């Protein structure tokens, strides 16, 4: 579990925050950074998250894999954007300061670069946030946290169940596919697409059956231990809010408000230095 979500137990202020707080902050901030394209704001959030990163005592090498992956993803997406719409920035900012002409319709404009900077900033402020969340929050706390921020407890428990059974299903998929190969189900990459898909079904099917059977036994087991009896339920993993938690939530909320209001200040989602 821990390695799956890369949870790194440490003793830091960020770890001490309740899961509910971190989840709320994650959601509030991600919505904040979604609503606006104000470069200054995004830059601000980015700096903030990187500071939090420092506070959390999470070392960069501990999450190097994640970061590297993300970086590649980011570069690719930016390239795609540029290939499809080299003039996107110009359209958005309604001005055109050409730097140089590359080839065909592909020119480099200040607006385009600035737009790419914004896109990159959007990643930069989101990703450390997510990584921070997963690496400082014990998966056991997810469910309780969701419930804390107002999600129906049954749905929260569904999340908990998902986390509970992911490792089992992963191991099961492995065992099933191998035992079927042993009985002659070939799954070579050379197979035609349709055949390949059919073979996948041969493996998926036992997985589905076991999962359906599991759904049955697990729901029996849960009902036998009176799940869903009351309108609410308590959580073993729940932790009381501390002043720090309140503070974090308030700040995040304010940032969301700020980002929304910025839309009006800038008369649009964009901070436009060009006109």
């Amino acid at each position, binding site marked *: *579990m821990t*390695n799956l979500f890369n949870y790194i137990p440490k003793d830091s202020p960020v770890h001490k925050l309740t899961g509910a707080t971190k989840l709320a902050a994650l959601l509030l901030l991600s919505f904040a950074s979604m609503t606006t394209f104000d470069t200054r704001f995004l830059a601000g959030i980015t700096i903030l998250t990187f500071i939090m990163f420092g506070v959390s005592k999470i070392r960069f090498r501990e999450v190097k894999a994640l970061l590297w992956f993300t970086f590649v993803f980011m570069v690719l997406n930016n390239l795609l954007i540029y290939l499809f719409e080299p003039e996107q920035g110009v359209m958005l900012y309604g001005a055109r300061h050409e730097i140089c002409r590359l080839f065909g319709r592909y020119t480099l404009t200040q607006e385009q670069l600035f737009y790419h900077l914004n896109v990159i900033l959007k990643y930069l402020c989101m990703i450390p946030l997510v990584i921070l969340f997963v690496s400082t929050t014990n*998966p*056991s706390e997810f469910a309780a946290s969701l419930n804390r921020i107002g999600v129906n407890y049954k749905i929260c428990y569904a999340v*908990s*169940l998902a*986390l*509970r059974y992911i*490792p*089992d299903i992963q*191991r*099961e998929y492995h*065992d*099933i596919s*191998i*035992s*079927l*190969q*042993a*009985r*002659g*189900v*070939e799954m070579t990459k050379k197979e035609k697409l349709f055949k390949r898909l059919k073979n996948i079904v*041969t*493996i998926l*099917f*036992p997985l589905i*059956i*076991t999962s359906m*059977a*599991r759904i*049955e*036994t*697990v*729901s*029996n*087991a*849960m*009902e*036998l*231990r*009176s*799940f*869903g*009896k*009351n309108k*609410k*339920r*308590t*959580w*073993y*993993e*729940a932790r009381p809010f501390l002043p720090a938690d309140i503070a974090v939530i308030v700040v995040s909320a304010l940032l969301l408000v700020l980002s929304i209001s910025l839309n009006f200040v800038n008369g649009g989602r964009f901070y436009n230095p060009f006109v």
Partner: protein
Amino acid sequence: MKKEPVIQFEHFGFKYDAQIEPTLYDINLSVYPGEKILIAGPSGSGKSTLAHCINGLIPFSYYGDATGSLRLNGKETRDMSLFEISKTVGTVLQDSDAQFVGLTVAEDIAFALENDCVPHSEMLERVAEAAATVGVPSVLSHAPHELSGGQKQRVSLAGVIINDVQVLLFDEPLANLDPSTGKTAIELIDDIHRQTNAAVIIIEHRIEDVLHRDVDRIVIVNDGRIVADLPPNEILCSDVLKNCGLREPLYITALKYAGVQITPDMLPQHIEDIVLNENAKALVSDWFENTPPAEQPAKGPVMFQAEHIRFSYANGHEAIRDVSFTVHRGEIMCIIGQNGAGKSTFSKLICGFETPQEGTMLLEGTDISPLSIKERAEHIGYVMQDPNQMISKTMIREEVGLALELDGLPREEIDRIVNDTLKVCGLYPFRNWPVSALSFGQKKRVTVASILSMNPEIVILDEPTAGQDFRHYTEIMEFLLELNRKGVTIIMITHDMHLMLEYAPRAVVFTDGKILCDDTPANILTNPELVKAASLKETSLFTLAVRCGLSDPRQFVQRFIDYDRRVREK
């Protein structure tokens, strides 16, 4: 006992929606507070169904037609809610993995409390308390896959006793537990029974193991009917167990062979305190003297060889540490050892499901490491521990025939083989059923059948008889012997000491990833240090021999087995 029964069946019957014939007929059974009852019966006889009726899953989760009356504390269950019932009846399901719904041990134990909105502080106390009762306080923060089979069992028990119920219901608590873990499980159940004084109902095939601690009554279910409901001492004297195709404790069988008249006043319930007068002892030792030892089968040529195998799982867990051993053509051998010793892992290595980091494996002198999984499977068949993971077709016929289909055999050929295999595995009557409607034991047999249909040279069976009653167990084993006479080499991974004693001339004992010893079952089970080190269980035959003051208890065990074999071959 002039108390009101907690549970009272009166002319109760039940038919699943999907069935034509009822699964339970005219059940009359009363369970009184503080009683301890063992329910035994052939696989598919309706034990789990009976349990579902008691804990309310029938009619609230499984649909069907119930007749007659079933009362909990005088109240008809069909008029109660599932929650009400579960306040009275705590169930530990047949599959302790599915029962484990929490992300960690602590959360799972707390589950029922969480649902009852018990305040956090109180919850912490009661969880700690329950964990202490079942002896898992040290692993509270562990995830399910970090636990051994025995620990999981304890956790599910803790999760049930945490709100004090009047009835504790166990469906095959011993399935897949190694002998000593099983022994401790029974002791644990007994202790909790004493502490809470709840009525305890245990459904189990391993009768002798359950009888390790006293039970008040044994209820025998056969084809959906209760055929006996008597104190153990009386059941053991009658032939009802044998007639229902169940296994009586070995020492009882031995005494009967020796011609000893067993009567209730001999208190045959425990081997330790069964009363053996001089003439009984005399009879036993006479029988011993007059039973010729069978000659040990000669070893065939070496067939399979593993040398210095090492293996660690991706998570760094070193499951196999420098294991070397040989298998001879045409032999039957057992691999035994405690939960988590590495038995299943090792067989997965043999079949190429996993690849060892070090060591070589030779099949008839040729290195098999280059062979693909499929190619190996044509020589070595592996029946996995969990039947559900092997069943990839909806209908029993298709499942058993799958490998043949893929080999492109002609239809009638396939049908012939499939029918034969099904008959052998006692599944012929169900041949046109969907797999989903089978009981656990029946499913297990389907998977055995599906591998046997490929007729490999070596068959590895992981817990072939788990959840099997004695009759089907014997059928399967006799079938394996039949195969074996045809020259098929058979390796069985098992926790069933009877199985090993009766069918395997040789056994290999695993403890945490290493081979502890490699000897005849009789020698292994009569060697106290070994029994302890490998968390096995001394056989009651040995104890009997000692109690009869025989010169050579070890030989006694061996001769009993040989004799027993001859008797059953007749």
